[in-house]
């Protein structure tokens, strides 16, 4: 759990972000603006999607709808087959992680190569991303250098960041030239113009979307915005919150396949719109706010839990606070509801989120759903027993705390006996590993006030 690399990075990142927002008044204004745009957009999601589709089509972008990740995968596979593709180069896309696309394509004989440096490193090392913006953040320079030595270019010297980048660049350039298919994510899709926007720093996204003959853009349906003029505020908060940059290095706006007379660009552009549970979130007024997310990662960098355990511990595509609210909704409360428990509800994420997602309120709602859930069939016996135990505990609690006489009796018994409780009782054991068992007051407050003659009504 104690990863010094994580600790160091995550003390620096929030600082970098704060430097971007030195003026807290300005920060608030921007968050209100960006959050307002996202909220307005998401509330009109069905309409905007209906607007986006024909506008994309008019631009020559072929639009595909996928209800599930399976559907999305087979759409991509069909496109790849038609293009006779053996090799695909990919820009960073969390939706493709959600689909486990690389794995799926590999099973079908198509190599999908990550071209974002961080994604590339973990792909080569057969790992999963541990952060949505910085997928290889859990590795330090020495570890990455070792990956390069062992798995990328044993003959080359790859000690410094520059050397490693150079090595990766050479390997990737060749692949870019050979790939028949380019796959990318989408940060924003503008409904009124049918434009796909891609934010990136390495230029690999531009390569993926221009060099190969066919480009497939993967997008969660919530990434649509209404108008071009909605973009600047969203971009500003995205780059500042994500990496502490005032502006991104590359901002790609893809509005069509290659036109007559143009020198580059793909011959075909496809947009795959993935639902995968998002329209279900849309149905609920509070849960809908999950869809506001612009995937900046700030909530992770500021989360005291994430920064201590790292992204892999969540065992889900989306780690950190956003993962805790997103994954249980994507995969179902019975399968992934436990993630909602992995929070102290401190709200540091809510404070950091540039679009003001009420993450803790959503966590509470998910916990409520989980507590109400009756589907227990797939639970192991231990999980079932734990759940039953918790239900009984709260029933007992309800009784004890709504009957004043019982409550007072319990308080006075506890104040006299708690010190003798063995700290190895199941609940106390977890507590007392790091702390002394709480010391009860000699006399509870309601007794003290009685003795002090404080008025009763």
């Amino acid at each position, binding site marked *: *759990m*104690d990863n010094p690399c994580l600790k160091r990075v995550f003390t620096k990142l929030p600082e970098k972000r704060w430097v971007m927002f030195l003026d807290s008044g300005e920060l608030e204004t921007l968050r209100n603006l960006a959050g307002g745009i996202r909220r307005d957009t998401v509330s009109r999601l069905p309409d905007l999607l209906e607007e986006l589709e024909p506008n994309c089509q008019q631009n020559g972008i072929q639009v595909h709808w996928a209800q599930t990740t399976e559907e999305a995968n087979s759409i991509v596979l069909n496109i790849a087959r038609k293009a006779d593709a053996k090799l695909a180069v990919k820009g960073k896309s969390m939706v493709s992680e959600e689909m486990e696309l690389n794995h799926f394509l590999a099973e079908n004989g198509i190599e999908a190569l990550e071209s974002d440096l961080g994604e590339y490193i973990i792909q080569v090392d057969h790992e999963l991303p541990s952060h949505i913006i910085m997928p290889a953040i859990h590795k330090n320079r020495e570890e990455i250098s070792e990956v390069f030595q062992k798995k990328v270019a044993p003959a080359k010297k790859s000690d410094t960041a520059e050397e490693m980048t150079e090595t990766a660049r050479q390997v990737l350039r060749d692949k870019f030239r050979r790939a028949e298919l380019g796959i990318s994510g989408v940060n924003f899709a503008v409904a009124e113009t049918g434009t796909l926007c891609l934010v990136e720093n390495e230029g690999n996204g531009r390569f993926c979307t221009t060099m190969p003959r066919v480009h497939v853009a993967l997008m969660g349906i919530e990434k649509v915005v209404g108008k071009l003029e909605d973009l600047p505020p969203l971009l500003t908060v995205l780059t500042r919150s994500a990496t502490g940059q005032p502006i991104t290095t590359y901002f790609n706006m893809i509005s069509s396949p290659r036109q007559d007379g143009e020198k580059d660009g793909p011959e075909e552009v496809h947009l795959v719109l993935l639902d995968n549970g998002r329209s279900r979130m849309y149905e609920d007024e509070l849960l809908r706010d999950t869809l506001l997310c612009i995937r900046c990662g700030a909530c992770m960098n500021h989360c*005291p*839990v994430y920064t*201590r*355990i790292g992204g892999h511990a969540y065992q889900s595509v989306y780690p950190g606070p956003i993962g805790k609210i997103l994954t249980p909704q994507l995969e179902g409360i019975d399968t992934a509801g436990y993630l*909602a*428990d*992995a*929070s*102290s*509800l*401190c*709200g*540091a994420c*809510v*404070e950091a989120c540039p679009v003001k997602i009420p993450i803790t*309120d959503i966590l*509470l709602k998910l*916990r*409520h*759903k*989980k*507590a109400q859930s009756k589907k227990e069939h797939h639970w192991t016996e231990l999980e079932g027993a734990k759940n039953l135990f918790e239900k009984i505990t*709260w029933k007992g*609690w*309800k009784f004890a*705390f*709504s009957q*004043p006489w019982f*409550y007072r009796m319990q*308080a006075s018994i*506890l*104040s006299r006996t708690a010190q003798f409780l063995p700290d190895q009782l199941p*609940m106390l054991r*977890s*507590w*007392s*590993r*790091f*702390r*002394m*068992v*709480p*010391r*009860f*007051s*000699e*006399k*509870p*407050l*309601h*007794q*003290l*006030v009685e003795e*002090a003659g*404080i*008025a*009763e*009504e």
Partner: protein
Amino acid sequence: MRRNYPEKPDKVYFMGTCLADMLYAEAGLAGIRLMEREGVKVIYPRDQTCCGQPAFNSGFQEEALEVVLHLIHCFPKAYPIVVPSGSCGAMMVRHYPELFEGHPLEQKAIEFSSRIFELSEFLHHVLKISLKDQGVPVKVTWHTSCHAKRELGLGDEAKQLVKQLENVELKELEREDECCGFGGTFSVKQPMISGEMVLDKCSDVLKTGSDYLLSGDCGCLMNIQGSLEKQQSRVQSMHFASFLWERTRGS
């Protein structure tokens, strides 16, 4: 300042909270004394129990609701209700309206919520107390409760009060508003993560070289105090109400 504060009232209710009742009873009484000294009559309804937060935060809203229904009946008159705990305050201010959404007593719950004040904000903004220090020179540090800051929107009211004390030197924590790892049942459901968080908080406290750790939240206090004591630290943990009262009671 989180809202418009009322004029100084003649009478207030004190909602002790279950944690203060059982673990920090002295702090509760100190809070009452601090207000009485300003000429305010304090009423402590004997039947009060808990704000419902433990069950609510664990997803057991129906159970929470029943306890809250009991609680709000204990405070029938229109007096302000003062609470010596930021996170219980946040529960009552922020979450009662949603807990009661569509309930026949929704209006009553909202009205109850609007009367809730956390102790430090009440002392600072409403009673505007001034404190005369009688104690020996000491160093203290302050841990901010996440819920007081982020849900209730409190600022540095408590620190302002502490700063009034002449012989007290306030040493700021490096990461004052980072969660101490308590989080109610989080501390037992995720014991390792919670444990690491509280250890980090303690080392931050120790680095300040303070004699006292003060906080305005009994949950955080129980957590950090428990860990400091486990480490056999000489730093004493105290609710700020006890601290303020102890240092000024002779005046």
